[in-house]
């Protein structure tokens, strides 16, 4: 819904102002460029310039000291054989493909419950939303380390039931799981978006369905879900892009190492280690470009696949 409006939105201003005078129009353009001057400067110096520069650096060997040495495709070749890079990709993909669907399912479920005219909606909404604001902070990552530690909160509660828990964050099989839980915990932001979406669904379909005697379950599958697909799609793209960039939580939980045994070595964390740990700027730039391609690729796939499952009613 939103995404579609963006694409067409830029055009709708043209017809509104009846400005025929050419000199006024020229003054308009000059004013526009003046208003956009900081943005243009930022776009070229802070965004596009660095993107192109990192493409160049990715073909060099550069450690900030001396000049970059051109090495052709060496960095990319090295990436093919880099076992830690492969494990970082695996960790990141697992995290994205497990935590995002869980997070969205949770968000949708809660939004459905809250949308049924529950009294006190603003309070529930705020309580569920709060973790989204805090989730990316260092303090919460510190808390997570303690909650899922060997003698942490979770194990204290399990001990109450007579279960001896693991040191979750320090166990290679479970450490990633604790970070997935952390991401699911921040389902509040997509939930608020779902709530806004549910508000917009036209009542007529529901009236027709209840006249026909459709059960709530059937109404969910045949009306709510199809009408909500644009919002689901929007949340999916957004949360996937966010999840690919996860850094803070993994860094704090593993003290920057990505351990135990690289089980929380997220792609961004490995990039940080290469670029700002060993100052291998060439390799880090090549990694940055791969990340850009991965995210662009997945976003493109999402948009392409959307044709088959996203339903635009109007």
């Amino acid at each position, binding site marked *: 819904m939103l995404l579609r409006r963006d694409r067409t939105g830029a055009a709708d201003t043209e017809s509104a102002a009846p400005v025929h005078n050419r000199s006024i129009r020229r003054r308009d353009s000059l004013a526009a460029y003046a208003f956009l001057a900081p943005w243009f400067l930022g776009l070229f110096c802070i965004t596009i310039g660095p993107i192109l520069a990192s493409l160049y650096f990715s073909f060099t060997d550069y450690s900030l000291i001396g000049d970059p040495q051109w090495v052709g495709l060496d960095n990319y070749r090295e990436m093919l054989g880099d076992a830690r890079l492969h494990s970082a990709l695996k960790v990141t993909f697992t995290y994205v493909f497990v935590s995002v669907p869980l997070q969205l399912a949770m968000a949708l479920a809660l939004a459905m419950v809250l949308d049924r005219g529950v009294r006190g909606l603003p309070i529930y909404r705020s309580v569920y939303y709060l973790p989204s604001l*805090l989730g990316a*902070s260092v303090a919460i990552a510190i808390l997570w380390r303690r909650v899922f530690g060997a003698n942490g909160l979770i194990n204290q509660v399990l001990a109450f039931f007579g279960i001896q828990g693991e040191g979750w964050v320090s166990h290679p099989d479970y450490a990633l799981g604790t970070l997935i839980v952390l991401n699911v915990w921040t389902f509040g932001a997509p939930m608020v978006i779902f709530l806004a979406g549910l508000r917009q669904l036209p009542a007529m379909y529901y009236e027709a369905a209840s006249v026909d005697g459709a059960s709530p379950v059937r109404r969910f599958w045949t009306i709510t879900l199809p009408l909500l697909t644009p919002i689901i799609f929007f949340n999916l793209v957004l949360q996937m892009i966010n999840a690919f960039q996860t850094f803070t939580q993994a860094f704090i939980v593993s003290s920057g190492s990505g351990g135990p045994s690289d089980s929380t070595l997220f792609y961004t964390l490995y990039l940080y280690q290469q670029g700002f740990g060993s100052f291998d700027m060439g390799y880090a730039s090549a990694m940055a470009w791969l990340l850009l391609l991965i995210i662009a690729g997945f976003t493109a796939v999402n948009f392409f696949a959307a044709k088959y499952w996203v339903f635009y009613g109007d």
Partner: protein
Amino acid sequence: MVTDSRRSTPSTAGDVRTTPRGHLRRALIHAGLIGFGLVMLYPLLWMVSSSFKPTEEIFREPGLIPSTFTPSNYSDGWTALQHPFHHYMINSLIVVAGAVVGNLLACSMAAYAFARLEFRGKKLFFAIMLMTIMLPIHVVIVPQYILFAGLDWINTFYPLIVPKLLATDAFFVFLMVQFIRGLPRDLDEAARIDGCGHARIFLRIILPLSMPALATTAIFTFIWTWNDFFGQLIFLTDPDMYTVPVALRTFVDSTSQTSWGPLFAMSAVALGPIFGFFLAGQRYLVKGIATTGIK
């Protein structure tokens, strides 16, 4: 995204209200929602309560009531690092203030151009602006670092503030474009007929009417910058320049089993301002994400 609310609640809500079975169901739903909310917030509550517990108790006691109330965690934590904790808070506040001012100025200016003015290449630039919202910082961080190192800006706050003055947080440009498009044009057209220039229209008409969008921008910028770790970790390596997140990171990495009490105390202090803004600005936060869709 939000146009108008055509449907207040689904029709089922009506019959749930009246019957006795409906009352029971409603009570169950509330019980479920409250229980779930408690589970969600429990780690936070436990953190705050643990910040008043002696450290040994944090490792034993999942409950919320400290056996001995230990406010000394706060004074111990405050002085545990090289500088007192308010040193890092002041640094964070400088970065945050710069970022808020930068975003308010630069993003609203760019948004005015996109929403109200005609110029060549507008569609293209608008599309580019939307794409930069999706761009991960990690893709540009290496060349940015090289650039800022060349300017001798490492261990200053410039790398964290100057980009905001150049409207690189495109998300807020988008948010304000959406908002300004929704404002009626009558006022600025009347002003133009009276001979007002764009600077005056922007300052006297558009900005005052855009207060809700500016508030949303300010609050989100505050929270995100206060939380931001990646940029601050990379650009600030001198302990004198550490902000709260970077200071907490050195704290946790140097912490043995004995000082979790003070560490929790400082973590609670770090979350305090976010919680305050959350309480004060809820209206804008919920509206902000509902109209634009980013957390």
